[in-house]
């Protein structure tokens, strides 16, 4: 797929601490002084106008918000065995939802609301390893 060089890569945006955290095996997420979690990551809180963003470590635990199992070979997914399951995971104790992948050894359909725990892996795209949370059903 030709994306005209428009893809934003890690470490050049407001979410750089997230990527750096994953590279160290930690899940860091941004929270404003007013208590509001900011995701997508932002340098300013739209709720209170604050610009003091703290990056807080969260355990890699959460629940499945939704999912899809991909069977078609789309460009950029060449490193993933088909079929693979992608999920939106709600992280415990902050409510931020993250895109990630879910272990799917037996092709059992995921259940929305089901508890999951994660570990840091990587997804290889165009010769680059992107840190990725790989979730498993707990």
């Amino acid at each position, binding site marked *: 797929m030709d994306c005209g060089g428009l893809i934003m890569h890690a470490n050049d945006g407001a979410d750089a601490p997230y990527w750096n955290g994953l590279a160290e095996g930690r899940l860091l997420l941004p929270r404003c002084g007013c208590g509001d979690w900011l995701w997508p990551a932002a340098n300013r809180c739209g709720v209170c106008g604050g610009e003091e963003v703290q990056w807080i470590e969260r355990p890699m635990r959460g629940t499945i918000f939704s999912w899809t199992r991909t069977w078609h070979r789309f460009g950029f997914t060449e490193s993933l065995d088909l079929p693979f399951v992608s999920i939106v995971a709600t992280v415990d104790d902050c409510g931020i939802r993250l895109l*990630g992948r879910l272990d799917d050894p037996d092709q059992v359909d995921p259940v929305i609301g089901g508890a999951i725990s994660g570990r840091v892996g990587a*997804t290889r795209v165009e010769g680059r390893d992107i840190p990725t949370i790989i979730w498993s059903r707990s």
Partner: protein
Amino acid sequence: MHPLYGTTAVAGIGMRQYRRGASPLPEQGVLVEAILAACADAGFDSAEVDGFVSYGDDKNEPVRLMPALGTRDLKWSSVIWGGGGGGVAGAFGLAAAAILSGQASAVIVFRALVEGSSGRLSAAVMAHHLNDHMLAAGIVAPAQVCAIRANRMYEHHGVPQSVAGDLVRASYYHGSRNPEAVAYGTEFDHKEMRRSRWIAEPFRLFDCSRENDGAAAFLMVSADRARDLKKPPVYLLGCANGAEKGWGDLLENDDEQLYPTAGFRPIARRLYAETGLSPADIDVVQLYENFSAQGVASLIDHGFCTYENVAEVVRFENLIAPTGKLPVNTGGGNFAQGFIHGIGTAYEAVKQLRGESANPVADAKICLLAGGPGAPTVSSAIFGNDVP
């Protein structure tokens, strides 16, 4: 009354459509043919066109069309932001804004798509959205983005998956009877659809629209001027475009209640408030369906049904002309009429209101055009062949 209500009209339409990769001309050539056809349809000199509007990253900057069209004065060229089909209906509102504010007087709304010239549409759409969060999750295509939302709508909000099949069947039923449709003359096998290969669950191949080459163009002028042209005017009665807080390009962090929708709740609210119309006043719907579930979500957002009663409303028999109470995609829609980034749905809206549809809805006066669902910015419009 709202300034958009019945003050501008579509006076002429033109379309060229081919199978993907089969266009006999490059993109700009096909577009020029469609624009000339729209002008001829209205009995209007193409040199008098002074404005152009498109959406979805169309590559044809209007100034480059001037030599072929004989354009004398270019006064307005603009696009609706956004890479998806969310802007298709909003483009008509933008053209009306130009005309009503006196910044142009004859505006062409268009969309052209020829793969050999500008590549795959799905890739162009995703270029707006792709980032490392998505790439890491293996989410790289519109089908997957919409599939995740669809699963939430089906599993968590209790919408039965069977309704998506009824919507697809209705589109193919109409398309098979429309000589201008890619599915013309083909019999659609519902069982074959159910067996078609998985793309991204819950979507099988037949839940996905597939791109065509082609272009369509619409000549918009003031309502007064349209009444003096060759074809009966199709009036723009209302148009809304945008997104509300808690919806947009939010890395799946949309408001929980908005997440499984198609993004049209604020659009429908404004559209009905500004026109004084309600879903009960809509005679026929032209519905942009990129994927089956998003078409269903769009019907829910526009107030035709709810999560609870969707199966009573989105039934094949209820969706087909001339007997259904909610005829949808009477030209065949993106699934079966053809998919030039959704512009064919607007084309059928005008045909239907002129009484020129291959699947006419008796006495149809008001048509809703629901734009690309699930896009960060979406739009819809209401057209009428009279100004009630």
